[in-house]
């Protein structure tokens, strides 16, 4: 597995404040990696160091094998960046097309390839009709779309997105998520995405890391993190004739569930070792003459995991 981003013992201080504290992690080729944390957790500082904009006090970052301290130019060729507050970072005296053309030119993208790429991105982001307008006339959401296009204009193998959808409307957020997902699926580009929108990370990211107060708390696939922090599993049971009280009593009587309660006409119970205990519970219910409409697991969201890890 090729590693695109390697972060080793990264530490960055601003005066007395340690923004990033001994962070180490790897991101593999083609991965969509979510970097999650509350405000001022150190997400943007990490991205700025990886983009060679800030110098770490300790440790380093390798992008595509290039050290940000030793080969900053090579790193910058390799990456695309949608910075924090990216929507406000366009040249108002240029048109949207010229903004993209300018940045493509700085990456030495051949003219014909650049034109095709810009057209493609503008079309996908539904900005084609407005290509000759100034970003000044754009709403924040539209500016953010332009920022995304700018980050991708040179087709970089590694893309850093700092809060890419936090200011977009739900429809556009979904579209951008789908776009990132599609790019990630092609296994060609690696996305490192800072976000505090956990639902976004859950939909898009192959792996996530939680950072808090500059410290890396957890790294892993969302499902692995769920399993790690949720040894107990919660199930919802719906019975024919909607008789939850009887169902509750029977489940309790089995002694296999840790807790049993009724919620909105359903029986909700928590078990450990569900693979062993659930069949027994179902058997007892059927033996008691109850008929089951549905038995469904209540999967904890990434938000639940996050709150547990960060301690919210």
């Amino acid at each position, binding site marked *: 597995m090729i590693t695109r981003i390697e972060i080793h013992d990264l530490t960055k201080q601003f005066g007395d404040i340690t923004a990033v504290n001994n962070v180490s992690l790897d991101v593999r080729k083609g991965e969509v990696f979510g970097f999650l944390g509350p405000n001022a957790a150190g997400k943007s500082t990490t991205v700025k160091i990886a983009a060679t*904009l*800030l*110098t770490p006090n300790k440790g380093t970052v390798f992008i595509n094998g290039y050290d940000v301290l030793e080969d900053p130019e090579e790193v*910058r060729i390799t990456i695309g960046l949608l910075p924090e507050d990216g929507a406000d970072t366009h040249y108002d005296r240029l048109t949207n097309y010229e903004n993209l053309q300018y940045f493509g030119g*700085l990456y030495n993208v051949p003219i014909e390839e650049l034109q095709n790429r810009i057209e493609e991105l503008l079309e996908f982001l539904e900005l084609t009709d407005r290509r000759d307008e100034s970003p000044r006339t754009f709403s924040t959401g539209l500016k953010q779309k332009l920022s995304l296009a700018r980050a991708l204009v040179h087709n970089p193998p590694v893309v850093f997105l700092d809060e890419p959808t936090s200011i977009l409307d739900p429809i556009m957020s979904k579209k951008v998520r789908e776009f990132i997902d599609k790019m990630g699926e092609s296994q060609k580009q690696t996305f490192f995405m800072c976000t505090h929108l956990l639902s976004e990370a859950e939909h898009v990211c192959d792996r996530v890391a939680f950072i808090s107060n500059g410290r890396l708390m957890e790294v892993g696939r969302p499902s692995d993190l769920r399993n790690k922090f949720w040894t107990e599993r919660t199930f919802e049971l719906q019975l024919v004739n909607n008789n939850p009280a009887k169902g509750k009593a029977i489940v309790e009587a089995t002694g296999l569930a840790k807790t049993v309660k009724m919620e909105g006409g359903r029986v909700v119970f928590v078990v450990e070792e569900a693979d062993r205990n659930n069949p027994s519970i179902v058997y007892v219910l059927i033996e008691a003459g109850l008929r089951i409409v549905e038995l469904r697991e209540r999967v904890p969201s990434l938000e639940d995991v996050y709150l547990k890890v960060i301690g919210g």
Partner: protein
Amino acid sequence: MLKKVWVMARTEIRMVFKSRQVKSIPVMVVLFSVMFSVFMAWLISVIPAPPDPFFYRVMMASTMGLVVVMMPVILPVMIAADSIVGEKERRTLVPLLATPLTDSELLLGKALTAIVPGLVVAYANFILAIGIMNGMLLFMAPFLLWVWPTLLDVVQALIMPPLFSALAVGFTVIISGRVSTVYEAYQISTFIVLPAMLVPYIGLLQGSGFDWLILSLVAVILGIADYAVFRLSLNLFSRDRLISRL
């Protein structure tokens, strides 16, 4: 390397000429140059004794020298301040710093952006003044026709502006990395480079204007100063400091 510098300078110059603030300065200075030429021609026509051609040439060379130098000092300082600190203020600096531009490419691009418009205006100004002055002298005092500019004056007008511009921009780049507003950068830079504008008057001290020796000396000294200031600005340039101050 030069391709990226050219892409940057070309785009930024296009943006510079769209700035209302910058647009007004060349117009004002060209206007000043025209008015000055007209005033000089009028003065020559009204003074009772015919002016001494030698005196006329020295006066024109020094005064136009100042006008020609003034433009490449004031305009580049303003553009460089706006181009570096202004980018910080407008938040456009972060994506630019994340591109593959090296520090020297970035500074060279910014320097060209600041220098070229000033040079264009300065040279245009000089040509305009030559045309107006000699055009009017043709009717008012034909014996002064083409007394100014001499070859020395033309060479001076050609080489001094880029040398002064580079110095002014170098100082502005250094200062821009340490201040937070365009206004601060502009004020401090102007204060530092303003004395340089007196250089065209050095020639007056010996009563004959610049001669080839003084011109060569001044050019060499300015060239060395330009290089030293550029190296210094490159050494002091720090993406970290610029970003941390945002």
